[in-house]
């Protein structure tokens, strides 16, 4: 019980803040509760299949396979798979972190994981359709075209700026989560 309280302390503190906001300004507080509630419902509806796939991936895909597909020597194939996996996903970016963790643990190259997250954040196919319908195709395509090299650049630069020790630490901690 006490452990539970400690684990959820930030959540509980924030709830208290929200209640305080409600006391100061009921309309803002109410709006905040509504938004939180609708986001929670959205998260809970999007997340189950993601985590089920994550569990299956963890159990069925061998480390050697993953290294071949997305590992250090996977080259262009690894990049394409990373783009595809990220683009085919649904859900907010923070839902991608646990998946990225499992992919790392299975031996994927770090820059491929960064590409995966870049794709997840901006080139998701369902999101692109949605973007086009509200912002127009020109806006969407312009953003898409510049995002592809941008994602790769961010991945490459981030990987280059980390030294071996830091990368090893990331791989080790991915295994422990």
């Amino acid at each position, binding site marked *: 019980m006490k452990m539970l309280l400690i684990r959820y302390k*930030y959540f509980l503190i*924030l709830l208290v803040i929200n209640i305080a906001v409600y006391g100061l300004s009921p309309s803002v507080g109410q709006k905040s509760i509504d938004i939180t509630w609708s*986001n929670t419902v959205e998260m809970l509806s999007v997340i189950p299949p993601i985590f*089920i796939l994550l569990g299956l991936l963890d159990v069925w895909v061998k480390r050697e396979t993953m290294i071949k597909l997305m590992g250090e020597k996977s080259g262009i194939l690894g990049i394409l798979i990373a783009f595809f996996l990220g683009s085919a996903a649904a859900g907010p970016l923070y839902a991608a972190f646990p998946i990225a963790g499992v992919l790392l643990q299975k031996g994927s190259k770090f820059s491929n994981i960064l590409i995966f997250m870049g794709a997840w954040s901006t080139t998701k196919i369902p999101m692109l359709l949605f973007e086009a319908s509200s912002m127009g195709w020109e806006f969407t395509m312009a*953003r898409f075209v510049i995002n592809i090299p941008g994602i790769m650049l961010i991945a490459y630069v981030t990987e280059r700026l980390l030294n071996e020790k830091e990368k090893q630490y990331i791989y080790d901690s991915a295994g422990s989560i």
Partner: protein
Amino acid sequence: MFTILMYIVAFGFLVLSFIKDKKKTLLALKKAWKSFENILPQFLAILVIIGIMLAVLSPEVISGLIGEESGWFGMLIASLVGSVTLIPGFVAFPLASALLKGGAGLMQIAVFISTLMMVGIVTIPLEVKYFGKKAALLRNSLAFAFSFIVAIAIGVVLR
């Protein structure tokens, strides 16, 4: 709609896995639950922060800050708002389109959308948990800088 597709795919693989190996499937489900429960505290905290933030930063407030004439300052504000807020896409795009009609500038909106999707200040603690401090900070700062390039490119292409 796309979520339903995800459910179908996940369920299909689950059934397939169950037919092939019951034990492994149960283990997979256990792992799925464990990794979910592991980040649930952060998830919930993030959801409440987003709620409070979006309640304070209403569309009217945002569009007042990032109007057509707001220039670089407006872009900076837009990028900061985009970085700290976390809005699901199906809310963000109609919002962006409404902000545009409400007088926000195109480049400001572009930088807002780009940071919104790529930069997550609120989720940094979670990201650090998976990738360490340096990688998480690097990824977010590079994405932040890149969002300005996206905005400038869009400004050039669409004007």
